[in-house]
């Protein structure tokens, strides 16, 4: 289960410095910042801009373009359910509705107890075993049905 650090300017500077000399460093820096803090804190944007000799608007534009980057940390666990065609064909829409109902949130929202963030993802490359889901960064689930989904929701809420 990922654990995020609270905002720390020095920690952010260290992360930025570690990646800034790569060619096209913005995405590696943003990924590393989000890995540490769970999101791209607003205060980090001018720091990244300065390190890369770009404008704040350019970095802000990059951050907001990509679905992955958040402006606030997610819940303790992030559950991504695939909503793309292959999973739709295999009953994914009904499971998505069930997940929303059981967690009491809509896609893109976090439960009131901050335990689970439910998100849509468009394809996990597990289409041979649709419907599929991803918990946190790397736990994959396939051939979901109501029973397996309920177990997964329980695990996410634990």
């Amino acid at each position: 289960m990922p654990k995020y650090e609270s905002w720390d300017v020095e920690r952010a500077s260290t992360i930025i410095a570690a990646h800034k000399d790569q060619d096209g460093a913005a995405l590696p820096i943003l990924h590393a910042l989000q890995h540490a803090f769970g999101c791209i804190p607003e205060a980090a944007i001018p720091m990244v801009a300065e390190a890369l000799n770009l404008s704040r608007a350019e970095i802000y534009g990059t951050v907001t373009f990509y679905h992955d980057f958040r402006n606030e940390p997610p819940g303790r666990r992030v559950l991504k359910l695939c909503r793309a065609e292959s999973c739709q064909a295999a009953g994914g829409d009904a499971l998505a509705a069930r997940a929303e109902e059981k967690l009491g949130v809509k896609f893109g929202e976090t439960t009131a107890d901050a335990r689970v963030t439910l998100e849509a993802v468009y394809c996990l490359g597990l289409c041979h075993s649709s419907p599929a889901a991803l918990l946190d960064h790397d736990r994959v689930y396939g051939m979901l049905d109501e029973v397996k989904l309920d177990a997964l929701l329980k695990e996410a809420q634990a």
Partner: protein
Amino acid sequence: MSARVFISRDSGALCVGADEVALALFKAAETRGLDVTIVRTGSRGMYWLEPTIEVERPEGRIGYGSVKPGDIDSLLDAGMLEGGKHHLSLGLVEDIPFFKKQTRLTFARVGIIDPRSLEDYKAHGGYKGLDKALAVGPEAIVEEVVNSGLRGRGGAGFPTGIKWRTVAQTPPQQKYIVCNADEGDSGTFADRMIMEGDPLVLIEGMTIAGIAVGATYGYVYIRSEYPQAIEAMEIAINRAREGGMLGANVAGSKYTFDIEVRVGAGAYVCGEETSLLESLEGKRGEVRAKPPLPAHVGLFGKPTVINNVLSLATVPIIMSEGATYYRDFGMGRSRGTMPIQLAGNIQHGGLFETAFGMSLGELVDEIGGGTRTGRPMRAVQVGGPLGAYFPRSLFDTPFDYEAFTAADGLIGHGGIVVFDDTVNMGRQARFAMEFCAIESCGKCTPCRIGSARGVELVDKIMADEDRAKNITVLEDLCNTMKFGSLCALGGFTPYPVMSALTHFPEDFGASPKRLAAAE
């Protein structure tokens, strides 16, 4: 004697519990005092049989699937390690019809070797293509790839060798090889399987490309939704470096080539090549207008070869076996093999590599075994979210670039998603527009605005609001998007929309008869 057992670490196996099975086997072997070596491989691509345990025997690998952790004791009792019979027995894995009917060229080693072992890769024919490439030199490599007839497997189908020749002919300077591993199309997973199951073949292909065009550095741009593939590629790159196959003097030659993994950030449009280059440069993934071509002005403004994973991973076998060997498979202008991915509501979901030319019907009915729900198959979408929906009446279409174009579709990256008769094609058309609206980079108007208007139009048609008039407007909008968009996202979204409307008009009205009948 130690028994060698193979269990996949491919995420398609992990998602149905392969790690738990491997752990259960490890523990049971320890308890029973059995000498078992568990090798973690990629997947054979027969995912309905995962997790599969394969046992090495003199006659070949004997399979057991789909195994649950609770089956381990009974399997060991049945003498699994000696190939004993059990109700999960699959017999010789390579005799399973789904596997036996394939022609595995690009996927020759996937599911067989340990993807983290350079030795295993070399023992199974790895780096023979590079040896040949080094022997013949840059110009002959390019000619070999041109002659093989290999076309871009990412979806556009542009001849790979021609791209390489264009970059090779630019004056010497910093050039790049970029591997597009942003496999975002629903219904596709072949790139993921290569990266997780045989990552060194991709490294070898990129290295050959580097030598051919005079590039010394390569990037593999992998989507963030593929954590296992990212890890597998990073490990393989390190193994190749340690083994002298990347870095200065690749394989003891005069050439320098190295590779770095870059991770995407959830933008579907970054699978479009120019958008991917922008993203690699650290910018918003907005599409570039062409020309200039990436071959002339690519990554960081330098000449760049940008190819899909499958295209690059096919180069080693073309080099080692020769262009003629490869081009002798296939039909018409579609040469070689295509790794076809069977997905959605299908009995036998998985990867089927075969020469071009097999009919769509054969693929989904015979190979795929029909729908998983057992209901009649109503539509299949070929080529991802931008591909057309095909009704049963078009199932005789052969799997070939030109035949699909002639049928107003595309083969794209080779994914086939099967739907049964409960599907509402009006909703699928709406989803296509909605997906385009969510994922549009926003640079060109037809895609950015057209997709939003498209959602509204489908809603109006479905609500029977000026139906005939709005269908005309939707057709006109699709035409504008098709010919006015900068890239395939806006340009191809009309395929699923128009094919759904053309072949399934009954789903676009006030009385969806089919839906009522299906319920």
